[in-house]
């Protein structure tokens, strides 16, 4: 990267030169991740983790604007970048003492009531803890005016399945818009593509009218779009799921997506020796991308032959059916404690990162928003849309790819074509029965968690919801107190109400509540998926024109 163009910004008061086009996190990676944030209640140190702008762990202040996601933000020359929510800095934050002072957590539901004369003081203290950044210094620039984009077909997501669907629709003569929150890839003939564009709201279709779908999307740079479409194909793919263990929020614990996103182009990954968690295709990808820096592979269950083959070739030890008991280290991760399931003594490994690649979850928000019928599939441990030949239960709404359970690339492209065929009214596509993911025995992590929680010595904080710093203990207490079902537990404890809107706590919370309540996860319920899918700036929406009439 030696003579690639560079920009100079002010980062925490000092000049910093970084390669142009890199994200802020990529620019700050030096064989390890920067600690950029402190958590909201206990001021635990936090480093970037999800790599998709969804979590709350890399927020910084850019040019007087709070809560900018450093994992997505590509700095421009003369930017002034500061950290937030820590004093004097995220590495050494005096408020971090809270974590030690309240080892069992802070009870804001019952506590802080007495004596009544202290109420104003408690309010001031607790309010100060809330929030990450301070209000913006200025209103900032007016975003570009929003606009309405009419199209026959809208395809959301430009992975293999979405691209295949878009291409197929366009070749059948339909005007087609393809959007992706990242890149849409190489141009496709006849397809209008929008890069870095996120569909945040897909309301149910209007009754009657030419273009019954009115999706709202927001582009990088703040332009809002109203995408008016006759047909929508959702191909929003999946994301790497969470895993609960004490210290699961330590700097150095990241998702596979994060590990890939934080690695500078052509550079080294954000760790020197990582523990890779997972035994499936995603773990294989990570071995290909960063094998030289993987210390060991552990999996909650079995490890697939492809992973065994790759790891063995690299001389990496494998630990199938192993519990991740704890991640240790004072600030950053230093080691992990492991134990074979069902037997044996705990042992530790020195690692500086844990990369979670054990579980790929669908992104179901748009289906829920649009009112599609969903079904819990225990094999996938998630909700999937009920499909008939690529069609959801909502007329005009189709789906394909990982979002509906097609695990690998070849299948995904075929499912894209099938969904497009269904949208074009060509039936007989071979997409199969009502859902792709079979229902079956309980999800494998349910057994894993049963074993992990059974008799485990509870040391350290098990942060079930990292955005709101909600501990597993709080959920257990609420559950024992008679609060049942995820909707009630959410309101009682605050899990799922933070910046990621449940992406990184809900999947585990469903399994854990199933164990605590003694009923299947599907009976625990689900959190209503409220718009927007990711936070959208008020200013962008304010610039959107009023909706054209339905007819």
């Amino acid at each position, binding site marked *: 990267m030696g003579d690639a163009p560079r920009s100079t910004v002010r980062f925490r008061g000092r000049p910093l030169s970084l390669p142009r086009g890199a994200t802020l996190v990529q620019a700050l990676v030096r064989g390890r991740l920067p600690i950029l944030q402190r958590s909201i209640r206990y001021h635990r140190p936090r480093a970037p983790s999800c790599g998709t702008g969804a979590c709350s762990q890399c927020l910084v202040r850019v040019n007087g604007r709070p*809560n900018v996601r450093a994992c997505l933000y590509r700095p421009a020359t003369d930017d002034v970048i500061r950290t937030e929510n820590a004093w004097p800095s995220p590495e050494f934050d005096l408020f971090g003492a809270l974590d030690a002072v309240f080892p069992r957590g802070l009870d804001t539901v*019952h506590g802080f009531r007495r004596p009544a004369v202290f109420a104003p003081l408690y309010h001031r203290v607790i309010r100060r803890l809330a929030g990450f950044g301070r*209000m913006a*210094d200025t209103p900032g620039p007016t975003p570009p005016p929003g606009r309405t984009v009419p199209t026959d077909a809208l395809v959301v997501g430009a992975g293999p399945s979405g691209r295949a669907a878009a291409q197929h629709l366009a070749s059948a003569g339909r005007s087609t818009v393809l959007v992706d929150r990242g890149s849409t890839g190489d141009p496709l003939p006849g397809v209008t593509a929008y890069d870095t564009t996120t569909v945040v709201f897909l309301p149910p279709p209007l009754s009657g009218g030419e273009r019954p779908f009115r999706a709202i999307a927001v582009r990088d740079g703040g332009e809002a779009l109203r995408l008016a479409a006759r047909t929508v194909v959702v191909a929003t793919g999946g994301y790497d799921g969470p895993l609960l263990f004490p210290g699961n929020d330590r700097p150095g614990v990241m998702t596979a997506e994060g590990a890939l996103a934080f690695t500078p182009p052509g550079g080294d990954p954000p760790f020197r020796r990582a523990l890779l968690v997972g035994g499936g295709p995603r773990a294989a990808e990570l071995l290909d991308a960063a094998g030289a820096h993987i210390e060991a592979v552990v999996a909650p269950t079995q490890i697939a032959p492809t992973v065994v083959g790759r790891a063995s070739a690299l001389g990496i030890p494998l630990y199938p059916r192993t519990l991740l008991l704890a991640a240790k280290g004072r600030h950053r991760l230093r080691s992990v404690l492991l134990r074979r399931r069902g037997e044996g003594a705990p042992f530790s490994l020195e690692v500086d990162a844990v990369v979670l690649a054990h579980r790929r979850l669908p992104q179901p928000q748009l289906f829920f928003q649009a009112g599609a019928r969903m079904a819990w599939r225990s094999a996938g441990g998630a909700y999937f849309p009920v499909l008939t030949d690529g069609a959801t239960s909502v007329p005009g709404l189709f789906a394909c790819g990982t979002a509906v359970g097609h695990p690998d690339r070849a299948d995904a492209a075929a499912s894209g074509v099938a969904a497009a065929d269904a949208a074009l009214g060509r039936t007989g596509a071979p997409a199969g029965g009502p859902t792709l993911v079979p229902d079956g025995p309980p999800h494998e992590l349910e057994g894993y968690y049963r074993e992990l929680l059974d008799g485990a010595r509870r040391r350290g904080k098990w942060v079930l919801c990292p955005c709101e710093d909600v501990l597993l203990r709080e959920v257990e207490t609420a559950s024992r107190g008679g609060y049942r079902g995820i909707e009630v537990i959410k309101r009682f404890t605050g899990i799922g109400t933070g910046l990621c809107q449940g992406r990184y706590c809900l999947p585990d919370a469903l399994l854990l509540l199933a164990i605590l309540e003694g009923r299947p996860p599907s009976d625990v319920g689900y959190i209503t998926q409220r718009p927007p899918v990711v*936070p*959208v700036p*008020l200013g962008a929406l304010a610039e959107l024109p009023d*909706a054209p009439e339905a007819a």
Partner: protein
Amino acid sequence: MNRPARGRYRVAIVGGGVVGLFTAYHLARAGAGPIVVVDRGFLSSGASGRNGGGVRQQWETAATVRLARESVAAWRRFGREFGFNIWFRPGGYLFLAGTRDELGRLAEVHRVVAGEGLPAELLDRDGVARHADGLSLDGVVGGTFLRSDGTLYPFPVLWGLSETLRSLGVELLYGVEATGLRLEDGRVTGLATAAGPIEAAAVVNAAGGWSAEFTRRAGLVAFNEARRHEILATEPLKPFLDPMVVRLSDGLYFSQTMRGEIVGGLTVPHPPGTAGGMSSSPEFLVRMARALTGLLPRVRGLGILRAWSGYYDENPDGLPSIGEDPRRPGLFHANGFGGHGFMLAPASTRRVAQAVLGEPTDLDPAQFHPGRFLDAHRAAPAEGLTLG
């Protein structure tokens, strides 16, 4: 399914939101006898788990000011009485007028509120600026402010009530739908439910946005109707806004919660009734974004975190219905609270309990009695300050 533990109760309450639970609490404290609450949802599934937590004592009608003032005292005590911290924070309510007419209306509100002995302030433009930082004052001519108004966190209210009620022996049956009344000679003898019949000498309709539906299930004409009301929360920020701000012209309101989120709403017309579901609309998001960035420009880059909606249960005169239905002895109403049933619950439900127990209340029947809409010639003052 939850099932009633006994065959006969003194009172059966339909709806386990804040109104039903607080009614049960006053009844239990008065030793009314066995009480059961049936609710087809879960605890917090109705408007009581979906509201903005605003608590104000500024109203056009003196009777409402009094209910609100008594309720504020109850909110202050709540932590001690129920063991849960509801974070009631008196940051004040700041009403904004955009025209001379609106300011005239607020001056009238101010007169009523001050007449009840509350230290409300009537503000000019500079006065408004003193109470909230960062507001764009274009289009603001003045307002009112009352410091002892504020916000609370609704959920722990529900936890505190339900735990206390259980310890008082009140049965709470969530997941059980009330399908109608049981009658004998035109008098209420109980409730028909999905879990079977429940005998009760009195039934209270505290079904919130669905109370008109329940009234109709009881075979009666309802005068109230449900209106979907939308609301949103932004990403959390460090504290910068103390009061709840309400704008008269469009009903825009917002405050900053203890968690740092800006929570607020705006009136977007929706057809009446509950058929549309409790979802969010793009129209609301866009209008709310325009209104909020217009009045508080520095939120322009701030992200909307989530939006949701619930039902306002609205009476034609903006006042709730409290008391026995003259058409159906034994059926009591505790509904029609519009967008303010949470803040008014402690004091209003005390009157509901009194009515159920056959005790006199201090409420003017022309303003609060459920039978008032049957009288075409009534001329009691209505409550017009129903926004926010």
